[in-house]
């Protein structure tokens, strides 16, 4: 199979370039990560992050034939050749397929992603009905891979000001949690022309999410809550 890989070694003094690679591999039942690891076994200078190899840790997000995906759950057979692989767009490249994720993590931290509840702690669990718990489905499953946020032009333009789809989805996860008591403060934190309203609803994030989550819908719900509290 034919691959075109983005290569960049900051110590080489050379500009980034696209490397053509051929690999003898049977795509049946194999994932893109298998191919990249086979290439790396031949040429160990190729650098990428990987861990769980089953789509739950979020390490190996990359741009594959123009789309942000997790290499470990992208079937090789689905991809048209040459398979062009680049680092996630919109974040500084450290080396090869490895990007500096800090701007993404900073936005995640900015939404205070932890449950806030100042009531005295009960001796057992805080009750939550299955219906209330169901509101968290589609939000808590985020693996912080950054496929969505780095597919969003608003984030490319304003990575320091726009929270981005992943961060906003997590903001919604806590706003929607019946156990959380900080909804007003969370909405205040987002009511800003950049932090929330840079989302133009183009739904790149929905298309990119490897877990099938829908950040645009969550963002819409946050906007609706803001409208509701103003009237």
């Amino acid at each position, binding site marked *: 199979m034919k691959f075109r890989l983005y290569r960049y070694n900051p110590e080489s003094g050379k500009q980034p370039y696209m490397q053509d690679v051929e690999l003898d591999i049977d795509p049946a039942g194999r994932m893109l990560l298998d191919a990249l690891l086979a290439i790396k076994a031949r040429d*160990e200078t190729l650098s990428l992050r990987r861990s769980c190899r089953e*789509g739950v840790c979020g390490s190996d997000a990359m741009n594959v034939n123009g789309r942000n995906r997790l290499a470990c759950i992208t079937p090789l057979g689905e991809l048209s050749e040459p398979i062009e692989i680049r680092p996630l767009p919109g974040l500084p490249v450290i080396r090869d397929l490895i990007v500096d994720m800090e701007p993404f993590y900073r936005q995640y931290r900015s939404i205070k992603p932890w449950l806030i509840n100042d009531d005295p702690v009960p001796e057992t669990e805080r*009750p939550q009905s299955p219906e209330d718990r169901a509101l968290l489905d589609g939000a808590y499953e985020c693996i912080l891979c950054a496929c969505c946020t780095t597919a969003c032009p608003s984030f490319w333009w304003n990575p320091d000001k726009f929270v981005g789809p992943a961060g906003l989805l997590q903001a919604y996860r806590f706003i929607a949690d019946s156990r959380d008591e900080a909804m007003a403060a969370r909405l205040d934190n987002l009511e800003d022309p950049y932090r929330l309203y840079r989302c133009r609803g183009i739904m790149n994030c929905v298309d990119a999410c490897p877990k099938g989550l829908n950040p645009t819908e969550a963002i819409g719900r946050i906007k609706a809550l803001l409208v509701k509290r103003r009237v």
Partner: protein
Amino acid sequence: MAGRRFVEPGVKTRRFDALIVGGGGAGLRAALQLARSDYKVAVVSKVFPTRSHTVSAQGGITAALANVDDDRWEWHMYDTVKGGDWLGDQDAIEFMCREAVTAVYELEHMGLPFSRLDNGKIYQRPFGGQSKNFGGDQATRTCAAADRTGHALLHTLYQQNIACRTQFFDEYFALDLLRDAEGYCLGIAAMSIGTGEPLLIEARTTLLATGGAGRVFWNSSNAMINTGDGLGMVLRAGLPLQDMEFWQFHPTGIAGVGCLITEGVRGEGGYLLNGNGERFMERYAPHAKDLASRDVVARAIAIEIAEGRGCGPASPQRGGGYVHLKLDHLGEKTIAEKLPGIRDLAIRFAGVDPVEKPIPVAPTAHYMMGGIPTNLYGQVVAPARFGPEEPVPGLYAVGECACVSVHGANRLGGNSLLDLIVFGRAAGRHMQEYLRDNPYPRPLPGDAAEASLARLRRWDRAGGERVAAISDDLRHLMQGHAGVFRTDAVLREGLENLNELEGRLARAGLQDTSRIFNTARIEALELENLMGVARATLVSAIGRTESRGAHTREDFPVRDDERWLKHTLYSRAGDHVDTKPVRLKPLTVESIRPQEREY
């Protein structure tokens, strides 16, 4: 050696009160305990914390909440002792099962999105090896967030640590322990993966929470980062490892791939079928059937396949046979609500939708019961002047890298996440006591980091052998020589082959000696750690001439309590295997005497 000397010009040093090595569930739980105190705590992790392997845990965390059915922590304790084939220390098991209830409520209070029952309480499901009334009917004890409990738990703990402003060193690789002449642990030598620069992190107390080493096997459910780094550090420091012959093979990995299919599938009512369409577990475990403990089910599957009753043609893709895990009868609604992640994995990796067809499964290396020996507080213990067990001052270990031992010879499903939380919290508490009792940092000897810096430099040297090839061969070696069924001859052959591999590793070099994000260098350092784990496993397995829990010796097919109701302690010096007694005395309740183990 009095006073502080310059360690090595140019090597940076950071100082904290407490240091946690590893950003998985155990490390983050301990870090949280410390971060909520006034002590300065740092977490070193070779990956961003939510990439840790805890994230892959599916089925749940076990605690006798009695939300669904009658339950008591004493029954949980009995099941854990029996599940571990009586090798677990009963004081530690009592502690874990008692503390389980509050530890799980605490997670809920932190925001963990548990699935819920109609009455609003935490959802619980039946899991393997669980019983009511000390071996009676099936219990329902495992608390779950759908089939993503590990993910929910790890993210919740990370979020809490952000709230407490824990200091994280993400993408730093831990090299070695720093110790002084009296054996005090004074921190670690590490390396920034991003820059390739070494960094010394000094701390009055250090906790190893580096996870398992399942990547030592070819067919493994483990993440690629599970390379036993903490175990390598401990071996290089001259400290022993305990019970390293005990590896759990999970019965239901996706055939040929190894990805895990949770026991929760069988807990929700799924079952196994062989090539003849027979529910074969009825023959092996007439009472518990598919919910017998994992060693029992994994052995049964291996026998079915070996005796020609597997499903499908023996092909390299499927690893020469598998059995079927049927769950379509649960219905699409239950599968969507309770097992959504499983359905996803099966469609992606096995090409079957479990709503319609059974999933092809086979045993896969999953969990290391052995590890760094510790006491109830997570203090690392080692034979010393005054007896077989003395704490190594300043050094702690919890989670899969540790052996406290609560899992004995075979871990029960749902007890792993529990182990992380209970002992992470206990270690965090005890480390605060240690910091109170040891208020002043001890001087770091000038040569404390020399060996690990030399180890780093060693990989700047060229060499003919390739790391990736040796790594592959090691994993095949362990798969072939230390798998579900073992004999003396096969284990010894494995050890000979390992000697040869170690020779090759000494001649190996890197093509890539760059500094910035050189993952080849990391893989070389990881391979050194895996080599130590493999040696400890083979030598300990040769030593234990009985079959107990997950350690099945075909040449010694029965459990031998007279000779082997004890832990093994492997030391690297001379490949020595020592033993120490199993603690059969719990803290407050009566001892559970060894019995015949039937399910």
